């Protein structure tokens, strides 16, 4: 089952009928992870706890008391807290750190009998678009190992794409789920901000971060969201809105779909992506949907706004990693000042330091108004314009990424070029809307790429319904 997994419902039937067991499933994944070690997707597998959970699940299946996700084997991005397990956000600075608690999303998965198999490599502190910025080495794209899997949740994307688990969790601050989903041919969701509690998600940029699943099938994504979503007293920014039955979502009637002119006419768009994107538009029209090109005119402001806001928040969120209370402390430290300076200098990677410094700068006296305050204003403009579009349209359609996965090392000397990888994805984070990347394209080199569908706030049910329809195009 493990290697030819298609969706959870089919697998569940196999579990119920006894043609496979959760224990078998976990064991074969552990073997596969070992044999695919060169992909560098898993930082650690939780063999003992995963097998123990699997045994319990098999019992529950027999007794008919198994939860909604019984036996679903899930990998966690290495920024999600799982009680008594290591978590490092792929950074040296959290050396030897174990979490004292499980995050809400993880708790809810466990409560429905999902199995946590291990933690997945990512860009350090979720900062990156290629997964080359991990302190534990790059993750390779299983479709072509000379290429990146995207980031920052590269390990999570690869784990699903390479059949190392049934599903995985990533986090998406500016596209960190959708972009690697695009590069690996998986389904990647960024829910509405506040839909899934952030309790237990190690923050990069608090006002943008959301947990999101990687799956093979849209219905698995819906099922996972159904379980993880909902208000949480531990995260006051989580929404109390009732959770819809996402897994049973169906698309009904013709929809109005907006295509952003700036995306369609974007210079960086690769020919293969553009051609497929136009083809999809035509197919949607042919099926009776109304697809219109609308002007947005803020595409060029997206990435700068995103980097000012996210780095500002990150500079503060990452202050707690100071070498004093937990994690890495420099052996050269002699007093409090040198403990900070040396521990942070040695513990953080270059990209993290770059972003902390940038974030510190934009919040500094004398620069705050020019950068942070201005970015907040532009963000508000983006939110207002986005809301206005959703007054008239059900969805916004763009490519997820301008192109398919690039070669390892391709953007490594040019951080700005790397930042532009996020051009289509940061929109949903800045505005807070849900968005999904659907594996709908393959380029001339056989590399997959995704098409992104964005919906109004808390419009996940409609998003899933329409995604199912899109997957048939």
């Amino acid at each position, binding site marked *: 089952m493990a290697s030819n997994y298609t969706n959870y419902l089919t697998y569940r039937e196999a579990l119920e009928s006894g043609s496979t067991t959760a224990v078998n499933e976990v064991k074969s994944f552990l073997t596969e992870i070992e044999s695919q070690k060169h992909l560098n997707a898993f930082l650690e597998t939780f063999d003992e706890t995963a097998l123990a959970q699997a045994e319990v699940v098999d019992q529950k299946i027999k007794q008919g008391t198994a939860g909604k996700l019984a036996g679903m084997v899930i990998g966690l991005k290495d920024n999600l807290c799982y009680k008594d397990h290591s978590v490092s956000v792929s950074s040296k600075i959290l050396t030897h750190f174990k979490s004292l608690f499980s*995050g809400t999303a993880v708790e809810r998965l466990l409560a429905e009998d999902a199995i946590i198999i291990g933690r997945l490599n990512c860009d350090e502190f979720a900062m990156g678009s290629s997964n080359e910025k991990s302190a534990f080495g790059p993750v390779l794209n299983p479709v072509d190992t000379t290429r990146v899997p995207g980031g920052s949740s590269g390990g999570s994307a690869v784990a699903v794409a390479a059949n190392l688990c049934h599903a995985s969790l990533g986090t998406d601050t500016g596209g960190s789920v959708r972009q690697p989903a695009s590069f690996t041919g998986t389904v990647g969701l960024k829910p509405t901000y506040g839909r899934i509690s952030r309790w*237990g998600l190690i923050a990069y940029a608090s*006002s943008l971060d959301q947990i999101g699943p990687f799956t093979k099938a849209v219905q698995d994504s819906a099922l996972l969201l159904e379980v993880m979503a909902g208000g949480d007293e531990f995260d006051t920014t989580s929404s109390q809105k009732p959770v819809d039955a996402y897994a049973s979502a169906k698309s009904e009637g013709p929809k109005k779909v907006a295509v952003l002119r700036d995306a369609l006419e974007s210079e960086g768009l690769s020919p293969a992506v553009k051609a497929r994107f136009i083809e999809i538009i035509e197919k949607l029209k042919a099926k009776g949907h109304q697809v219109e090109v609308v002007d947005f005119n803020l595409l060029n402001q997206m990435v700068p706004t995103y980097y000012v806001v996210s780095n500002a928040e990150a500079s503060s969120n990452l202050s707690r990693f100071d070498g004093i209370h937990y994690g890495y402390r420099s052996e050269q430290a002699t007093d409090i000042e040198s403990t900070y300076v040396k521990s942070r200098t040695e513990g953080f990677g270059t990209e993290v330091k770059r972003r902390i410094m940038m974030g510190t700068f934009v919040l500094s006296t004398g620069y705050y108004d020019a950068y942070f305050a201005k970015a907040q204003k532009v963000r508000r403009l983006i939110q207002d314009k986005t809301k206005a579009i959703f007054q008239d349209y059900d969805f916004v359609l763009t490519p997820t990424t301008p192109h398919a996965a690039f070669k390892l090392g391709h953007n490594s000397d040019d951080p700005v070029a790397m930042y532009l990888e996020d051009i289509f994805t940061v929109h949903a984070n800045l505005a807070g809307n849900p968005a999904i990347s659907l594996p709908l394209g393959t380029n001339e080199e056989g590399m997959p790429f995704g098409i992104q569908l964005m919906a109004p706030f808390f419009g996940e049910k409609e998003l899933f319904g329409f995604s199912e329809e899109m997957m048939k195009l």
Partner: protein
Amino acid sequence: MDKAVRDKYTVVIGLEIHAQLNTNSKAFSSDSNQYGSTPNSNVSPISLGHPGTLPRLNEKSIEFGIKLGIACNSDITEYNEFSRKNYFYADLPKGYQITQFDTPICTGGHVPIRLSNGETKNIGLTRIHIEEDSGKSIHDIDPFNSLVDLNRAGVPLLEIVTEPEIASEEEAYEYLSEVRKLVRYLDICDGNMEEGSMRCDANISVMLNGAKEFGEKVEVKNMNSIRNVKRAISFEINRQIELCEKNVEILSETRGFDAPNGSTIQMRGKEGVNDYRFFPEPDLLPYVVTEAKIETIKAEMPMLPNELLAVYTNKYGLSEYDALNIIEIKEIGTYYNQIVSLTSNYKGAANWIMGTIKSHLNKFGITIAEFSVTPQHIAEILLLIDTHKISNSSASKKLFPALLKSPEKTATQLAESLDLIQNSDSDDLAGVIDEIFTKFPGETGRIKGGEMKLIGFFMGQIMKASGGKADPKMTNKLLMQKIKS
């Protein structure tokens, strides 16, 4: 300092008070806010600043802020945003403090203080805002390491900032005393400066009278009692005036108070100023204070010191001195209120508190909370005195000590068992007086002849003969009648 020199200068002081709120749990977590717990025992991953944690607002800290705002006639802010104040320190596990920056819970308002000339002066408030406390760094236990106790990390504070309207160390003293009384009456902070639950920083400058610009401002910290605030300010004023007199420039700096020497010493200069990089806290939603919430809190407000003063002086007829004396300590004020809810002898109740009770408390060094005689007992004693059943002196000298020993008994029970119920029957008394006249014929002749200084002698003899039970007032009256007859 020569008064003439000091009088050439105008002193400008602004105070910042940090009041630790006595909520059950911390400001942004459910960790206990219990003072004096074992170090690092009131700490969940939130207080520890562990990755993946998020703050959760304790609404009580907002309510406490509103209470103080109502008491100070401040404007209550409807839309409350929280901000992060970023700086590194070992006892600040998150690397930032959650505070209010652009939207303090209260703005404006004032605290009235009484000046030595009897006038009242309103000290204006700039703002009151909510923030979380840091942990505590301890440098004097381990000879090689600094220790950090995070029990205090996340404890809610109100920072109360005055306008630069305090003109002397005496005014600062009065202001702090008033604020301490207020937070205690509101039951939001225990106001204990020695334990650090109330802390004060002073910004002090001096300028020549009539000058248009304030002098360079110096911040003084580390004053752990109201008295030390006064001493520190006093020292700092003199220091600054002396520098001005010598035409030496005053540096804008932070100084610490050195209590043993009564002086201030430099802690850090201006160049050490942090850029705190305040920005809105993205982990907390803004808190909206509704009109209904304010009304609910208003309805629950206790009587405040100034309101009590008005009642005591206007309705109860106490002198301002007596009233202030009783109000000074909240628990004593409450005790008094309980007595006068049972008796209308307001003045008598006040006298008992300020006399017998206070001297007992002082003698044993205890607070009224540790005092076994109840307000009911005192009210009953007052009733016994007012109905001439016992004398004032036997009440305080005999009944009161007996009540201390047997607080489970009523005052009447004890008065009876001690045989203190006095004889107020005038026939009996008249008989006793006649007996004494017979016993001391010489003295009787002299007093009847007008030698009134002997009255004390006769009163004493009558009291002795009656076993102390004669009502002194009645005795005096009868004795006077008999002398003149």
